[in-house]
């Protein structure tokens, strides 16, 4: 019987059906796997080196205005931290192009994106995450002609091309806490990690509520993104008698869901969280109007400066606003808000907790 010739350079395996699976099938399989990886990475990462990194709904490219890039830790539509900066930058004038790299919670990923934007010639790179400070300090030194903005933070590292921006979220937190105390007796606060503006908000809210007679429980879940844990924490608050809830960071949509399911009231911060719940749930939100300080920054950079300043949004300069949600605002509510706001702006109340 004649033997079938077997090419020596290809390893052949014969399956039960007699079909041949040569080595190149494995190469194809590996290539397919690699393509899946690249496709997934390309879906959210806009900062490929040398590529046009524009992603947001924004200005057409033109030769006038600054090219601004944002690197942020969560999604653009998180109804929280990242959405606030995206909306702020979108509201700026004097900007010709906006590029966004969201979802870079891992610091190394953010550092890559920041460096890529600087390499790509962007005029202003906004590093929107407290955790980005370390790599930002190094990258800023490598690109002295690029302006960098770091938030939320108050440290410019003494570098002329680094600005910092922060939010006095304790102020709006205090006002919301005072408002909540007029409507609730026991409030649960679902916090992420006790750092930055998250801690400021939680502290301010706690003081505002307690100063006005409400009981407050605070739990930090130790995560900015664990939605299920936020939901479970909110549920535990409800089981322990809370009649109102609040929280901060992108994981709060889990807690908002509990508020809606259990018929509780919700107080939001950073962005307008009203869309996340049905009517009658979201009482009010502290909104970060980043454009109030970012416009100053853009104007300074346009004028030739590259940094060195610290900017802050607060109730007084209109960078923090209290906006009502989908609960009808009564006269009592507006009175509580106005009174608390006046006290905060006047410095008559303490809005931060030491330590």
């Amino acid at each position, binding site marked *: 019987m004649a033997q079938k010739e077997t090419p020596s350079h290809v390893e052949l395996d014969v399956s039960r059906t007699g079909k041949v699976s040569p080595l190149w099938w494995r190469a194809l399989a*590996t290539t397919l796997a690699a393509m*899946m*990886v690249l496709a997934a990475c390309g*879906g*959210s990462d806009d900062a490929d080196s040398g590529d046009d990194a524009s992603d947001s709904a924004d200005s057409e490219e033109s030769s006038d205005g600054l090219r601004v890039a944002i690197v942020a830790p969560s*999604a653009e539509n998180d109804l929280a931290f990242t959405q606030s900066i995206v909306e702020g930058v979108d509201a700026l004038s004097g900007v010709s192009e906006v590029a966004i790299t969201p979802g870079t919670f891992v610091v190394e990923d953010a550092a890559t994106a920041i460096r890529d934007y600087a390499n790509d010639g962007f005029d202003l790179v906004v590093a929107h995450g407290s955790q980005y400070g370390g790599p930002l300090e190094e990258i800023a030194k490598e690109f002295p002609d690029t302006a960098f903005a770091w938030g939320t933070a108050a440290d410019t590292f003494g570098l002329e091309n680094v600005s910092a921006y922060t939010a006095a979220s304790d102020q709006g937190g205090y006002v919301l806490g005072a408002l909540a105390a007029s409507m609730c007796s026991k409030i649960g606060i679902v916090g992420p990690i006790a750092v930055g503006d998250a801690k400021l908000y939680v502290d301010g809210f706690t003081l505002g509520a307690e100063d006005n007679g409400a009981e407050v429980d605070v739990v930090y879940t*130790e995560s900015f993104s664990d939605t299920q844990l936020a939901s479970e924490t909110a549920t*535990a608050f409800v089981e322990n008698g809370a009649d109102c809830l609040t929280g901060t960071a992108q994981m709060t949509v889990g807690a908002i*869901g509990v508020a809606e399911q259990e018929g509780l009231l919700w107080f939001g911060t950073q962005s307008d969280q009203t869309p996340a719940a049905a009517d009658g749930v979201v009482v009010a939100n502290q909104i970060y109007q980043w454009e109030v300080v970012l416009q100053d920054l853009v104007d300074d950079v346009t004028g030739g400066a590259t940094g060195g300043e610290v900017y802050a949004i607060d109730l007084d300069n209109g960078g923090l606003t209290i906006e009502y949600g989908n609960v009808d605002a009564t006269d009592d509510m507006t009175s509580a808000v106005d009174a608390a706001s006046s006290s905060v702006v006047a410095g008559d109340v303490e809005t931060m907790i030491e330590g």
Partner: protein
Amino acid sequence: MAEFFTASVLVTTFAAGVRLSMPFLLAALGETLGQRSGVLNLGVDGVMLIGAFFAYWTVLETDSRLSGVVAGLLVGLAMGVLYAVVTLVFHAEQGISGIGIFLFGLGMSELLFQELVGTPLPIPALTEAPIPLLSDIPGLGTMLFSHSLLVYAGVVLVVLLTWLINRSTFGLDLRAVGENPEAADSLGVSVIRTRAIAILIGNSLAGVAGAALTIELGTFQNNLTNGIGFIAVALVYFGAWRPFGVLAGSLLYGLVTATVTQLKVLDIVSGAAASLTTTAPAVLTVLALAVIARRSASQPAALTVPFERRH
């Protein structure tokens, strides 16, 4: 501490633990089937994510939670077909292709959410379905018999899969191809078909796990699972590749998480202690895996080994 050890707190904490464990259980049961057949899938989290998105979107459009669960199942099934082709037909390295599946699910769910929905709109959430009479039992009724239908389905699945693996012809084939595929093949068992079925069922369950998560929460967000799929893979090892073992591991994980949460809410632990206790579920998983390593003999012998029939 005394306030934790009251009947009401213990009961609600246990009930919370059961509720928390369900997405882990469903995903881990699916992965158990796959691994018993010799196929490792590190992409469970990605399948959960894309299943969660399609379930969420379906509920948003139809207002039907059942349709959402079905959507999650079908998307999981589709991902299973993809994974089966990549691993069984093309013999791709299972670890790499699993990570590819994870990244695909992560990126695609984010992209689709951005394009089709845009913001975390609320959807009708899972509601409790108390079992008549049983749910009225003091304590036990709340702990075990006042959960959602998906919780009960998960428990039923544990029993079903145990029977399937240990008592059915398919289960015999499954175990055979997972331990010694060459011997199974020589006895006429179709290794490829058996593994393919296991992958399809496993990924379908991962899709249902994602659907369960998003419907339980009543919302969707990027990276909603936050690594649940990877914990599920670890739970398969914890449970020694047995459905009841996986159930025990999932419950333990859920109960520890619920206990830590309750301790924080009651302010029994706070500050640095609270931060430390948050790591308890993960630490427990690592410790359990270290113990299980001593029992590595129970791991399917052909796990991650592609089958190639040779003359």
